[in-house]
């Protein structure tokens, strides 16, 4: 034990003499742990929120009975099943509008609600009476209370004119859901005696077969392992995870180069220790202990940084998830103990992986071998060939995945394989470029420049690989975001056809507003819209009512359309489907679909497919008059107006004054557009932030590699100095070299980045969001990125080069006197 401590002290003395190396090692570990655990924290937070939503009052976590056409069914089936011993609890569900905002109204029956229904809010004993007995209660999340701008006990009015039971806050509830007693919900939704589904609790007996009680009127749905929300948001989290992983590996590159260098430099020390009688096992154990201690310390700091990163990104992530998928994530970060343990664990595991080659070398260390501080650079050629072969193998995997893979994971795997292959291939490629340069070089100094760059390659290659990856990802992601941004704005212009949008609080008020508007001379057209909800092949689908107006015909963003598509829409037997829906269900123009409607199913021809970016819900667009005929309950509270530009502000003020409407209820096109673009930009703020982080980590990798190389490069530089090159000249050459290599890397990153962008747009986006964007290249952006890369390299190289320029001649002379 004592001996081990002495060995540890000796080993640690190295770091005292090379604090920069220690800093490098720690920075690498901290960076790796911080980004990884930050991303994990965000993902965990989101998953918890999905779980909460899923478990709420028997979401998909509870087995249930539903009607085969997913329509409502008679309450008598509930009674029949209960009387047959089925442990069922009825639920009715629908949507209501309050002040133009749509909420999910859930009617539950608390007495039969299965106890095992997840983390359903527990009503207090005396609350049962308050919840069930008139006037009852509306349970809402505190966030919803705030959204409604209401206090507990208030009874807001819904669009049908009826009032909700008094509001009552329940912290466990998810936002945007109103929970009321089943009888109240049936009344509010106009579904008297109707149920949406039956939750199945733990059996209290041995009920007979389902079919013997209800025939084929109900079917059992087993609890899904994955919720719809989880499925939808998977891509987003995979995205984050991919960034986290990338940063983690870039961090490990840093650790690897720091540990490798430290090990090379400590070889003589290790040999001396062995010669003094320390066993190889003891030495190795102490080396591992040293590494674990460092990893522990760095892991803790990394976790704190990770927490800060997660807390900083969470509001944007929450906004993205809300905008993209309608998923509600609390903005306050809460972490479990496992997260901290996992973070420390990943730091230690990462450090051990990064140091594995060095540790293996230490085990095999021959006692009497001579010091070979340059040993790792000797086998360069063989190593390049091997790595090149590995790169080709990885490319082959990427191709196979591209050919045969069909999932989102496969899409990401293609990306990962492409980038890994490119990174592995980079040193070989640079070697070829430098070799060509060397062949063409004239004059001894130029020749040396190229040859020395080649010699330096193996030492810098890890950092360059990191830079390549970071740049490629950057190019890829910014190309995708820019593409999306332009497509989105064009699309938005098409979608927002009306000049002014009004959302009336209820139908009666909407009628009054319409008749008032008809009297206004500046109003050129009043366009009505409407939304209803239904199902298609068991999935919830939003029905959007489109007015029959020339403006819509001109601008509505149809991707594909049958001839005379708009004319087909008018009689009410045709529909347009959103791109997401068409991809998910494989629908094409000309197909026929059938959806449940209150008066019987509705058969629709698909006349077109339209882009519906950013909508988490699958959508069908039909003629609004037909929609109201088929779904008479549809609130007709949305009104669009065509108004000459100059009359817009005056009209808005007049409407607001006349009908006491707030800013949220009346908006002009520009405001709506600005709001949409703001949400859109926020969606990609996280991507941008992670992008910057990754590039930053790559910059650090480059800096640390250059710093660690700087010392070992003295023997190469000292002879040149001795021949007569000034230190500043030498420094300039060093700087040029670094920048040249960085430039090559950046130039190589461009095509790789474009391939990444293509993968993101053509594979990942389609799988993740259900839409495919046209692929654009933005040259200016690429030039900008190359400049950023060079700037980062310049900054990274500046410190070691400045040191060289100011190095004492005595230090350079020392090179010739030293062992080396």
């Amino acid at each position: 034990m004592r001996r081990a401590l002495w060995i540890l002290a000796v080993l640690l003395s190295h770091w005292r003499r090379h604090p920069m190396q220690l800093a490098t090692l720690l920075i690498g570990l901290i960076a790796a742990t911080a980004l990884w655990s930050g991303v994990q924290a965000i993902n965990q937070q989101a998953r918890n929120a999905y779980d909460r939503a899923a478990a709420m009052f028997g979401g998909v976590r509870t087995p249930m009975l539903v009607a085969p056409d997913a329509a409502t069914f008679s309450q008598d089936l509930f009674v029949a099943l209960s009387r047959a011993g089925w442990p069922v609890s009825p639920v009715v569900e629908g949507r209501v509008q309050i002040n133009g905002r749509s909420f999910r109204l859930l009617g539950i029956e608390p007495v039969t609600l299965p106890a095992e229904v997840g983390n359903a809010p527990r009503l207090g004993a005396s609350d049962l009476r308050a919840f069930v007995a008139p006037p009852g209660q509306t349970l809402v999340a505190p966030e919803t209370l705030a959204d409604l701008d209401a206090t507990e006990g208030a009874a807001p009015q819904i669009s049908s004119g009826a009032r909700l039971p008094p509001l009552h806050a329940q912290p466990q509830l998810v936002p945007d859901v109103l929970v009321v007693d089943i009888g109240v919900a049936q009344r509010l939704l106009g579904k008297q005696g109707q149920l949406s589904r039956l939750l199945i609790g733990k059996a209290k007996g041995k009920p007979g077969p389902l079919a013997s009680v209800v025939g084929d009127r109900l079917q059992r749905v087993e609890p899904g392992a994955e919720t719809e929300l989880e499925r939808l948001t998977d891509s987003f989290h995979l995205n984050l995870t991919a960034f986290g992983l990338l940063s983690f590996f870039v961090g490990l590159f840093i650790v690897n180069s720091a540990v490798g260098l430290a090990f090379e430099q400590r070889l003589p020390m290790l040999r001396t220790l062995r010669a003094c009688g320390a066993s190889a096992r003891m030495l190795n154990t102490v080396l591992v202990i040293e590494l674990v201690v460092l990893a522990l310390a760095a892991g803790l700091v990394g976790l704190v940084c990770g927490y800060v990163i997660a807390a900083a990104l969470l509001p944007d992530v929450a906004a993205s998830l809300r905008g993209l998928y309608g998923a509600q994530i609390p903005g306050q970060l809460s972490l479990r103990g496992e997260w901290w343990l996992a973070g420390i664990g990943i730091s230690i595991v990462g450090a051990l992986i990064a140091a594995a080659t060095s540790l293996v070398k230490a085990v095999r260390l021959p006692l009497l071998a001579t010091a070979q501080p340059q040993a790792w650079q000797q086998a360069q050629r063989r190593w390049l060939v091997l790595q090149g072969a590995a790169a080709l193998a990885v490319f082959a995997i990427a191709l196979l995945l591209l050919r045969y893979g069909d999932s989102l994971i496969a899409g990401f795997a293609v990306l990962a394989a492409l980038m890994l292959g490119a990174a592995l291939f980079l040193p070989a490629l640079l070697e070829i470029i430098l070799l060509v340069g060397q062949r063409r070089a004239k004059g001894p100094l130029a020749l040396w420049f190229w040859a020395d760059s080649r010699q330096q390659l193996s030492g810098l290659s890890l950092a360059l690989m990191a830079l390549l990856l970071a740049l490629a990802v950057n190019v890829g992601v910014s190309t995708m975001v820019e593409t999306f941004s332009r497509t989105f704005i064009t699309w938005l212009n098409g979608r927002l056809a009306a000049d002014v949008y009004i959302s009336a609080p209820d139908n009666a008020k909407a009628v009054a507003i319409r008749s008032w508007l008809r009297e206004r001379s500046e109003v050129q057209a009043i366009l009505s819209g409407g939304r209803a909800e239904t199902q298609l092949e068991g999935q919830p689908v939003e029905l959007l009512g489109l007015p029959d107006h020339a403006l819509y015909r001109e601008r509505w963003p149809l991707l594909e359309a049958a001839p005379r598509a708009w004319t087909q829409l008018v009689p009410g037997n045709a529909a347009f489907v959103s791109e997401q829906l068409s991809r998910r269900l494989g629908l094409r123009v000309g197909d026929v679909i059938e959806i449940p409607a209150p008066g019987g199913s509705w058969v629709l021809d698909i006349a077109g497919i339209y882009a519906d970016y950013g909508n988490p819900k699958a959508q069908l667009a039909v003629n609004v008059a037909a929609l109201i005929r088929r779904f008479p309950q549809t609130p007709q509270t949305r009104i669009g107006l065509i108004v000459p530009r100059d009359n817009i502000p005056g009209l808005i003020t007049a409407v607001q004054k006349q009908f006491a409407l707030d800013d949220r209820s009346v908006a002009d096109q520009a405001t709506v557009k600005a709001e949409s673009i703001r949400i859109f930009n926020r969606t990609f703020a996280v991507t941008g932030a992670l992008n910057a982080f990754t590039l930053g980590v790559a910059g650090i990798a480059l800096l640390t590699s250059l710093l660690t190389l700087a010392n070992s490069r003295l023997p190469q530089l000292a002879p040149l100095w001795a021949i007569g090159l000034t230190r500043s000249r030498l420094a300039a050459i060093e700087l040029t070299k670094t920048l040249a290599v960085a430039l090559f890397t950046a130039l190589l990153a461009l095509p790789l980045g474009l391939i990444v962008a293509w993968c993101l747009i053509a594979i990942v986006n389609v799988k993740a969001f259900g839409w495919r964007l046209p692929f654009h290249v933005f040259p200016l952006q690429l030039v900008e990125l190359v400049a950023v890369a060079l700037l980062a390299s310049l900054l990274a190289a500046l410190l070691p080069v400045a040191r060289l320029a100011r190095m004492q001649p005595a230090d350079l002379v020392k090179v010739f006197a030293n062992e080396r």
Partner: protein
Amino acid sequence: MALSRRAFAQGYAGLGETADGFAPVTPGKVFSFPADHGPHPDFRIEWWYLTANLVDARGAACGLQWTLFRQATEAGPQREGWANQQLWMGHAAVTRADTHRFNELFARGGVGQAGVDAKPFAAWIDDWEMKGADSTDDRMLAPLTLKASSTDFNYALTLQADRPVVLQGDAGFSRKSERGQASYYYSQPFFRARGSLVIDDKTVDVSGQAWMDREWSSQPLDPDQTGWDWLSLHLSSGDKLMLYRLRQKDGKDDPFGNWILPDGRAQQIFAADIQMTPKGWAEVAGRKLPVEWQIAIPSRSFTITCKPLNPAAWMGTGFSYWEGPISFSGSHDGVGYLELTGY
């Protein structure tokens, strides 16, 4: 969901709550059947409570319980559908010397999941039911069929009787305290039961005697009263005896009884004439319960000792209590049921 259980427990354990708006229990009610077999929604609580002392083909004793409780959350006219203010709770149990199984169900009134019809008689909650037929005699409330099931037990019985139901207390008015708390109470103690009992998928044929209590009230307990010890006894002579003791916070308890002759005539027995003494205690569910009793009614030369078939007959339901078959010997012998609440 836990809330319903707790709410129910509160309702039953807190029987002393004021009877605001509910119908009062007053002496002099004239019972009318079959109407009074049905629910009395104007009163706060009500139950249909059946216990049976049975033996299987090999002579092994067992017991079963079937109970339907009704509680009104609010007084006033009955509302339709889900807005109905009645809550229903069912308890079923079987007890053998080596095992005690129980289950409970909850339901809301107004939609048909649970309820009671007077004619033809039917009391049900989910698939548990106590049901009459066209041949059911209104005065005897017989014959009936009875069934209940759970994951680890179920039973089905037919119940026959040849004597009318018996009014308890003073012509069906059962006074529970000096301050006027009371209930309407009648019983059918003369049921002969026959049927099958399934425990862990093993079916046995059983037969024996059963006792049904019908009771409703708006405020049967005084706030000082903490619980009751209640017995129904089938004497081998053919006589029946109902006894209970309401425990008070001050330690005083008021025993009360009703002796039912084999011909159905009932005679009240008052506190001064009853000695109920706990003799043996059992530790069940973290509670100490008097499961063995010595009971004496000197005026009738009646002195018996009761022992439980299974001391662990704890009903670990939302509203929990001890309820199990007993046997007794002494001056008289026979079988019966013991109920201990408020422990």
